[in-house]
């Protein structure tokens, strides 16, 4: 299921990544949009506001809230009232939503939110890394990461389909790299309303806030049932593993584009070295792989598309025969000196018969650019592990020693 760029080309337009996302949201027919502007998410909400001003999103209310906290809180109300609900944010805004994130997922409200990934303060920094969304990994949201603007655009429709599935009913974050994808102009096929209508059925929840059938939402659960609430959320995440694959496959059937479901692979079949990464860095890695493959280096890429649910089985299947796995993380758990993808990949392989060394590189913090050469250097380090074992398990990349 590879993408056929030449076939898509006749339908492509060169637009900004943010516009592609806004256009995709429009095609998904949301009823309520509630968002607070924050760099680098602003262009998405500006474009959506313009769509609203032009009457281009029928049956939709756009709420200009006073904070991110209220942005997501409003969607608690709207989603519970049966409205397809959307927001977008990043960084500080996402962190401000933290408490509401748990609330949305616990109430099983299928909100979809684009997270335009950005570093978190302090020091304040508007550029890209993944610390914001990774820090929300335990909030019960499905988290999908996109490689390019076409994928984040298409992922929007997939996200609503996954979230609103009666078996799932979990909120979804679709994550795109701030500036790198949000502000790039590149050719993209904007989602077509008629095909989206075929792909994405209307949102019709079993329960909603309705005076004709007055249910209570948000009851408190004591120790007698709280555990089971948590279990049911985890069970929904387990079911989402398949649903994410299905949503990608169905999308391919209708739109002809596929980016993997939970994961995607590039040149991994015979690879000794497998790089793992999420987001826009994947494109740069593919270029580096082509370059090194030409020189006979057996290197491949495992792109993690779904970070929550974490695709443990899928990862095991891809890396089991590799000689070394390298996880690249645009985040760090300070105090552990590891990025989340690295930690969780290691954990996925422990207690199995798979015996492959895993090393981690934390990379691209706060928008530090990642040239192909940086990837090549990392692959050189991986080769050393094959030859002589691990010397450093996890480390910062391109650290400027002169500043320390």
């Amino acid at each position, binding site marked *: 299921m590879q993408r056929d760029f030449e076939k898509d080309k006749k339908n492509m337009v060169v637009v900004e990544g943010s516009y592609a996302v806004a256009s995709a949201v429009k095609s998904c027919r949301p009823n309520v949009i509630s968002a607070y502007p924050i760099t680098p998410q602003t262009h998405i909400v500006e474009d959506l506001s313009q769509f609203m001003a032009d009457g281009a999103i029928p049956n939709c209310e756009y709420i200009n809230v006073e904070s991110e906290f209220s942005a997501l809180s409003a969607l608690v109300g709207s989603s519970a009232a049966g409205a397809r609900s959307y927001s977008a944010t990043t960084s500080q805004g996402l962190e401000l939503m933290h408490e509401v994130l748990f609330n949305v997922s*616990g*109430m*099983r*409200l299928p909100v979809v939110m684009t997270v335009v990934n950005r570093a978190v303060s302090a020091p304040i920094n508007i550029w890209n890394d993944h610390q914001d969304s990774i820090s929300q990994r335990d909030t019960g949201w499905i988290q999908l990461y996109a490689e390019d603007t076409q994928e984040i655009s298409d992922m929007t429709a997939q996200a609503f389909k996954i979230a609103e599935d009666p078996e799932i*009913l979990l909120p979804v974050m679709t994550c795109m790299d701030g500036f790198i994808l949000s502000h790039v102009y590149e050719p993209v096929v904007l989602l077509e309303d008629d095909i989206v209508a075929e792909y994405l059925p209307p949102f019709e929840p*079993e*329960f909603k806030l309705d005076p004709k059938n*007055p*249910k*209570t*939402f*948000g*009851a408190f*659960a004591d120790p007698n*049932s709280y555990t*089971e*609430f948590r279990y*049911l959320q985890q069970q929904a995440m387990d079911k989402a593993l398949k649903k994410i694959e299905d949503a990608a496959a169905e999308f391919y059937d209708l739109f002809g584009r596929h980016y993997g479901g939970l994961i995607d692979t590039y040149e991994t079949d015979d690879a000794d070295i497998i790089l793992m990464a999420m987001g826009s860095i994947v494109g740069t890695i593919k270029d580096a792989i082509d370059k090194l493959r030409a020189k006979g280096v057996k290197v491949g890429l495992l792109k993690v598309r779904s970070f929550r649910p974490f695709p443990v089985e899928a990862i095991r299947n891809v890396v089991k025969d590799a000689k070394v796995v390298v996880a690249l993380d645009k985040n760090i758990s300070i105090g552990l000196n590891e990025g989340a993808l690295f930690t969780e990949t290691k954990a996925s392989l422990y207690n199995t018969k798979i015996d492959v060394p895993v090393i981690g590189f934390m990379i691209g913090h706060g928008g530090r650019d990642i040239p192909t050469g940086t990837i090549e250097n990392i692959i050189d380090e991986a080769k050393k592990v094959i030859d002589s074992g691990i010397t450093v398990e996890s480390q910062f990349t391109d650290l400027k020693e002169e500043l320390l």
Partner: protein
Amino acid sequence: MTIPLGGVCAPGSTLVNKTGGWRTFKPVFDYDKCIKCKLCELLCPDMSVDPRDDGFFEFNYDFCKGCGICANECPKDAIEMVLEEK
């Protein structure tokens, strides 16, 4: 009973929770004094004063917690709080 997604609850379902056992004193009507003013019904925080067909009221002791607001506010002193016999 299995948990519906998100823990949605049915309306008015606290009826299973009989709070009458919380009482120390219980209100008792003196129908000779009662003028059917409905104040007790209006003020009861536990919705435990039920109208009767004859226009008088009766206490629902399944739920009455015995707060005594009805007795305290009754304009005709038609409600007496008596110690609950347990």
